[in-house]
């Protein structure tokens, strides 16, 4: 029983990582209707920026804010320069673009900061949280930030004009254009926000997995799984999906014989496929009906 509770708690802690990433994945999906394979690398690059700023003596929260702004502008810049020209291109062209971006960012980060792993500070400390050694104060802080982020996004999309405009631009671009919404810039804004959320995810994840150019490789796959499970159209679903994937993965690894040692990663992939087959919209996603 103790093993069970421990694995669930550890699953929640790891799930917080996936939830953060899933939030960024959902965000970009909302804006452009595609999964951005370079999302993790963008987050990694932002995290390196913040690390560099701290190396130059800027305090944590200063570096945090500067990185957020940098990532927001960077996200918009990437959309304007790289993906706006591809807006009308087929999906595969976009996918190729994402993968190219992935390789470019990964290699540049390696070139600038090299590939050795680096320690990354946490603002929350790493003492045991509420007496439990399984969840540290950092992981509790991470869960807190994820929830705050989620609430912020909810209010942004539900109660602000620009949030409404973004939703309109993503779901019915043509009607949105007809009522005077600049859909092209809404997409750019979506990129900026996804990039900024990704940078927060990166800065929260780095103390756990250590900072290095390949830190996001595995995280992104689980982030995708979480987003698909919760529903690609629902930020709330993405976060819940993250925690579920974290817990499910640990329990399956511990209690299903054979799986534990050999098939832990395929669990995430099996999850993606089964959700897509059984409930394509995910647990909390909006059901999309297309008129033919």
């Amino acid at each position, binding site marked *: 029983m*103790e*093993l069970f509770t*421990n*694995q669930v708690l*550890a*699953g929640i*802690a*790891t799930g917080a*990582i996936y939830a953060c990433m899933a939030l960024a994945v959902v965000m970009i999906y909302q804006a452009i209707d595609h999964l951005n394979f370079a999302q993790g690398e963008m987050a990694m690059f932002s995290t390196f920026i913040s690390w560099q700023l701290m190396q130059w003596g800027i305090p944590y929260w200063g570096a945090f804010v500067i990185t957020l702004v940098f990532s927001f502008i960077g996200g918009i810049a990437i959309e304007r320069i790289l993906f706006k020209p591809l807006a009308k291109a087929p999906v595969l062209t976009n996918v190729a673009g994402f993968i190219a971006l992935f390789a470019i960012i990964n*290699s540049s980060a*390696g070139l600038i900061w*090299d*590939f*050795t*792993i*680096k*320690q990354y500070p946490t603002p929350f400390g*790493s003492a*045991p949280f509420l007496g439990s*050694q*399984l969840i*540290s104060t950092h992981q509790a802080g991470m869960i807190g930030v994820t929830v705050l982020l989620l609430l912020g996004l909810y209010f942004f999309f539900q109660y602000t004009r620009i949030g409404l405009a973004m939703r309109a631009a993503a779901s019915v671009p043509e009607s949105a254009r007809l009522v005077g919404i600049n859909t092209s810039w809404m997409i750019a804004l979506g990129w900026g926000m996804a990039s900024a959320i990704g940078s927060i995810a990166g800065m929260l*994840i780095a103390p*756990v*997995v*250590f900072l*290095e150019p*390949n*830190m996001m*490789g*595995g*995280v992104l*796959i*689980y982030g995708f799984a979480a987003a698909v499970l919760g529903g690609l159209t629902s930020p709330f679903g993405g976060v819940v999906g993250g925690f579920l994937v974290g817990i499910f*993965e*640990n329990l399956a*690894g*511990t209690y299903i014989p054979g799986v*534990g*040692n*050999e098939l*832990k*990663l395929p669990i995430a992939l099996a999850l993606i496929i089964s959700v897509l087959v059984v409930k394509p919209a995910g647990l909390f996603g909006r059901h999309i009906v297309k008129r033919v």
Partner: protein
Amino acid sequence: MIAKTLRPALLAVAITVFASGAALAQKKYDAGATDTEIRIGNTSPYSGPASSYGVIGRTEEAFFKMINDKGGINGRKIKFISYDDGYSPPKTVEQVRKLVESDEVLLVFSSIGTPTNSAIQKYLNSKKVPQLFVASGAKKWDDPNNFPWTMGFLLDFQTEAQIYAKWLMKEKPDAKIGILYQNDDFGKEYLRGVKDGLGAKASSMIMMEESYEVSEPSIDSHIIKLKAANPDVLMIFATIKSGAQAIKRTAELGWKPLQIINNGASFVSSVMKPAGFENAQGVLSAAYAKDGADPQWNDDPGMKRVYEFLDKYMPGADKTDGGIIHGYGVSQTLVKVLEMCGDDLTRANVMKQAASLRDYAPDTLLPGVKINTSSTSYAPITQLRMQRFKGEKWELFGGLLSRDAQRE
């Protein structure tokens, strides 16, 4: 026109005069060697997922530049031709073919990676081109009967694991062992080594074998599982990132088993420091090379030469990077072999000399560790010393542990 036809003739005369006048040993060359040049080929992952090992290739290039600046090897300059293979075996094959058939190198030296070298081993052996000092810790490179043109360099993982197992049997015979290993050939070779080393006692001493995937972002769940089995020795066979996580998480969980971590994940700067020095106290490992981050070598004559080289030829390089130390040591050993070749720079003689190293100690190896090869042993490094992490560095303890002693 006249000059052109005359030149070979003059050269022939000169050579005859030389050969008859002085009793010089006859010069013998294969492709890739001349009176003025020795061409050496290499593939390294300068891009792609394993690009952190690219530093080895860059160090080798810088090292040969230093040798050339000092006059080369027996008057010949080294031309080091290194191509990027992105750690992708098909690309390695393509690049190595180019090295052999178009660049006409004398030998392929220190190509990086296990899968990549596996892909070119048959080709190089059928072409009778030396595949020298492979940068991989797999055991398969020491197989002179089947692959007489291939030679490894590093102590292989399996032997390293056997040495830990033997050490445990002697020092802690009633140990209850938990093993965390990476789920691939690398991790499994360690696991096999431990079981071999423990022999009949393996089943009673090993309480749990737990593997993780290299792509898993966090290995918490595995540590918790291991802890639940409550072993008093935790053996960690991991790459740097997961190794650091394992040490950190074990400490955070308040669990204090005796920890043994593999040599490849024992770097001070990239494992112990990120894991937190306070968490790494008392961890055991074994080593054969000096750690560039370790202040105890600051006055060591060998390491002083390494640091001088780095200052001049690789300014700004991270001297704590294990890849640099490896690149330096392996290049120095190649230079030694080529010096031993003298004027007989044929591929056969290169292999013969590489298999005749006696008690050779490059600047980067620990005191007492020496390179020995023979026509039946193609494993240059076979010795290790145990070390314990204390403060911010490794402290060596005990004498040399060697593979050969294992066999007795």
